[in-house]
């Protein structure tokens, strides 16, 4: 089964891509004071009707034509709730979807955050634009591929020196933001 919260975030982003999203906003916020780890994934994809939304967290509900299991959302809901946290989906048909999960930071059942940098890089390969915000106890940073493209001009985001720099940038800033907190 899923072993990292970051893999759950990738699973949410994959739903967004299948919904036709061109912009995915991933946010991870940690508060040791509140004892929470907040995750949200927002997209500008096709959204869901109220009826679809209600069914979306049903195990085995899927709109996929192929054999998708439909276990992505229910599993993430369970893994947040079993840490004393919460799980919510807001969706507007034709506008987009936002999934928010809160995990109990210090709860024994909480999965580790895992390699969030690798998840963000994977989503950058797959989605036109990505915004990643990461904060912990007042520290933090935001990476926005739209701002990066503006700097790069004609140089593609997917060229090796750019990708290498972004990998280092994410790793260093994630580590500095996390500080001493065990994620």
């Amino acid at each position, binding site marked *: 089964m899923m072993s990292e919260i970051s*893999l759950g975030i990738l699973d949410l982003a994959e739903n967004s891509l299948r919904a036709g999203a061109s912009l995915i906003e991933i946010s991870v916020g940690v508060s040791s004071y509140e004892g929470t780890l907040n995750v949200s994934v927002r997209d500008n994809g096709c959204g869901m009707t109220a009826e679809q939304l209600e069914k979306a967290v049903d195990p085995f509900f899927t709109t*996929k034509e192929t054999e998708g299991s439909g276990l992505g959302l229910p599993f993430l809901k369970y893994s947040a709730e079993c840490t004393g946290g919460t799980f919510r989906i807001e969706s507007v048909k034709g506008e987009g979807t936002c999934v928010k999960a809160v995990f109990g930071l210090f709860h024994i059942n909480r999965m580790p955050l895992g390699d969030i940098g*690798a998840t963000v890089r994977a989503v950058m*390969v797959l989605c036109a634009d990505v915004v990643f915000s990461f904060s912990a106890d007042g520290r933090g940073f935001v990476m926005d591929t739209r701002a990066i493209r503006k700097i790069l*001009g*004609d140089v593609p985001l997917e060229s*090796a020196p750019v990708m290498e*720099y972004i990998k280092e*940038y994410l790793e260093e800033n994630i580590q500095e933001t996390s500080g001493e907190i065990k994620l």
Partner: protein
Amino acid sequence: MKSIEELNAIRDKMKDQVGLRSENPDCTKVVVAMGTCGINAGAREVLNTFAEEIAAKKVKDVMVSQSGCIGMCKYEPVVEVYGPGNEKVTYVEMTADKAKEVVEKHIINGQIVNDYVLK
């Protein structure tokens, strides 16, 4: 903390070698299955390795994308490679190392890596 502004220098160094990305419709497509099953089996690392290797080797006309679960859960991570004529090769139980080999042998040199193809 590192700043994204450092990309200014990288851009200046690369300005004269642009045009790596292609919208060529008959390019090679690498499709990584990224349903819940694929992600749990290691699809993230496989996808990132494909993207990094294709960039590092400066291979043109290759698009990396994802699909949901394609019903081959026990063979995950699964990667489908569509050639310029749209012929499909399905690689199963992929790893980062196997992905590097597929880029080198199949995508660059046109030789299918039969050891990793679904039998």
